[in-house]
């Protein structure tokens, strides 16, 4: 267990910048998720933490000690790869025991510890099998056991759930969370799936093109996204974004005009979450008559697509039964506090709000 810190960490591949200066501090025993689209540098960061890639500049410290020059095998980091990377020529038990081969631990003790971890991740019945004979979920557990058996300072999970089917993903999510809590091991999860990130981790770090966009709890990211990127990446179905122009206390977006509560000038992007939009809500702003063009029942809620004065907009209504039909005209609005405003040039969120 350790406190991990990244200071202005950079990685370049012959001129191409993969990670463009990251600062991050992870408390001992914390569970942090690094969330971002593919190619944002999150896996590169993970590989640098594991010691497989060497950073171009910047520092990585474990408990305050700089480990940049420590080889992968000296860092005592456990890693679960997306492909699980089990050793097909060894049995499950041999796989789990593999990391202990390189430590001065007696074989009997190594086996005892391996069996203990196997019980923890619930693969104690599979120890004599080979990885090829296991299902995806079982392989995942073996990989987890192998990463944990050496009692790592840091556990790294590289998209651990992306190869599992939906039902198993749900179970493994809670399983990993349970095991992490039980052991209290500092854990970093890398994923492109926001649900994985927000459900498993205490804190989520959103990365985009090699930079950290924002870090915080799931609630922070959802309610107070720091940038346009975070707003559009977090939330499903995605947020509605409209280009607008603010002048003289009014925001005009296409044909719609909204009064602003705070003074803003210039190009602004208006963000409306599909779930904050509602039909016939009292005290709503921006109420316009919108014509519904598509109805998609999703089970416990219904997703509508409508043509509004802002442009094409999507909104959600709770309840399995659709209450509107295609080509219905509905008065659509939103609570003023739910509208997000972003500066178009910098992409940063503005403190300004829409007036009631």
């Amino acid at each position, binding site marked *: 267990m350790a406190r991990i810190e990244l200071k202005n960490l950079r990685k370049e591949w012959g001129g191409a910048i993969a990670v463009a200066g990251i600062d991050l501090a992870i408390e001992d025993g914390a569970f942090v998720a690094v969330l971002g689209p593919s190619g944002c540098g999150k896996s590169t960061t993970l*590989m640098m933490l*594991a*010691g*497989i890639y060497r950073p171009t500049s910047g520092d990585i410290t474990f408990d305050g000690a700089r480990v940049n020059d420590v*080889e*992968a*095998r000296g*860092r005592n*980091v*456990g*890693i679960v*790869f*997306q*492909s699980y*990377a*089990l*050793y*097909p*020529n060894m049995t499950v038990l041999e796989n789990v025991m*593999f*990391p202990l*081969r*390189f*430590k001065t631990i007696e074989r009997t003790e190594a086996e005892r510890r391996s069996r203990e971890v196997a019980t923890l991740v619930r693969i104690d019945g599979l120890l004599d099998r080979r990885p090829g004979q296991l299902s995806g979920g079982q392989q995942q557990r073996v990989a987890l056991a*192998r990463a944990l058996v*050496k009692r790592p300072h840091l556990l790294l999970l590289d998209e651990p759930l992306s190869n599992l089917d939906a039902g198993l993903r749900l179970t493994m999510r809670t399983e990993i969370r349970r095991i992490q809590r039980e052991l209290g091991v500092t854990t970093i999860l890398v994923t492109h799936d926001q649900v994985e990130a927000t459900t498993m981790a205490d804190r989520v770090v959103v990365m985009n093109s090699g930079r950290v966009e924002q870090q915080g709890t799931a609630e922070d990211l959802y309610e107070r996204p720091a940038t346009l990127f975070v707003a559009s990446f977090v939330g499903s179905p995605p947020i509605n974004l409209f280009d607008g122009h603010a002048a003289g206390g009014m925001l005009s977006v296409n044909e719609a005009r909204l009064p602003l509560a705070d003074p803003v000038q210039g190009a602004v992007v208006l963000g409306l979450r599909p779930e904050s939009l509602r039909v016939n809500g009292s005290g709503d702003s921006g109420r316009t008559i919108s014509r519904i063009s598509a109805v998609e029942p999703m089970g416990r809620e219904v997703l509508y697509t409508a043509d509004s004065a802002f442009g094409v907009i999507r909104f959600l209504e709770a309840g399995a039964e659709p209450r509107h039909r295609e080509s219905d005209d509905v008065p659509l609005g939103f609570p003023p506090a739910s509208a997000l405003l972003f500066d178009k040039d910098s992409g940063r969120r503005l403190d300004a709000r829409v007036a009631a």
Partner: protein
Amino acid sequence: MAADNLVAARGAQARPDWPALARRAWRRRFTGQSMLLAFLVVVSAPIVLPYFWMVVIAFTARTGGVASDVLWTACAVIAPAVLIYSIVHMSVPAPRLRLAAGLVLLAIAGALLAALIGERLHLDNFRFLTRANFVEEIRSKATSGAQFPSVWNAFFNSLLLAVSQTVIILTVSSLAGYYISRFAFRGRSVFLQGMLVLHAFPAMTLIIPIFLMLHWIGLLDTIVGVMLVLAAIELPFYVFVMKGFFDGVPWDIEMSAMTDGATRRQAFRLVVLPQVRFGLIAVAVFAFIRAWEEYIFVRTFLIENKNWVMSLYLFWVSDDVMGVDYGIVAAVAVFYVLPSFLLYVFCQKYLTQMTIGGIKG
């Protein structure tokens, strides 16, 4: 509406005659399979017959002539048996019955062969295994000249050449293949292309320069000299094949081993090598057999009879102005073929892997 038309058309169509279709499918499959079987039998006959001839002659011929009636008698028993089994195979679908029919046929054919040519079998032709100077019995002492070496001398020379060849090729091709597969270095693609060109280049054209070089180095007429030349000529291909196999091993596994505490060398040995074991087996078998059957280079670079390998031994046994004793030549050939044959039989399933790895490369 177009959709209505489609629905109407489907309704108007007559119901298909399922049993007739099934019969037609069965007939088509039957004729297809029989033609395939016939084709395979016809094509393999010219490949199988020489070996058959070799074995029959080795066990039946007497000094001074070859009686071909034994060969024809054997063929007259075996060919109908193969034909009958083919018909049984085609018309009986149950594997159990097929096996039983096959065993019965085999027993009948065996009994017939024993009755017809059984008493003519003998092992006299294999006397070269125990008597070094058997040549003097079939040739006049004057023509045989110098002492003819024992077959075991040639056998162990061949074995030495083949085993050392296998060891050199396995070591170099696995290490080089791994390096080319995993590391980026300047000129990597040129190197790869160069290896392919080298492989395509007919090595025979180099035979005179190599002869001269071996002479100057002092390795002419030594097994070591042939070993080095053969390894150098064969290696590019095997390096390429091994590179293909290493390409198929995911990076993750190595990275995982290194974060688990292994050094790169340990990761290679404990995790990567076991994954390419089929490739290693295939390369080893091919390298062994290639050296075992080598003729041109050994014929050119080995002169003294103490350095003969099996192929040279076979050549010198058959080389005689007074006429050839086919019985002994065939017996030596059987003895010579046996190790490669056994290797093929036992490693056959690994050898097919080679093409897979090769394509990946």
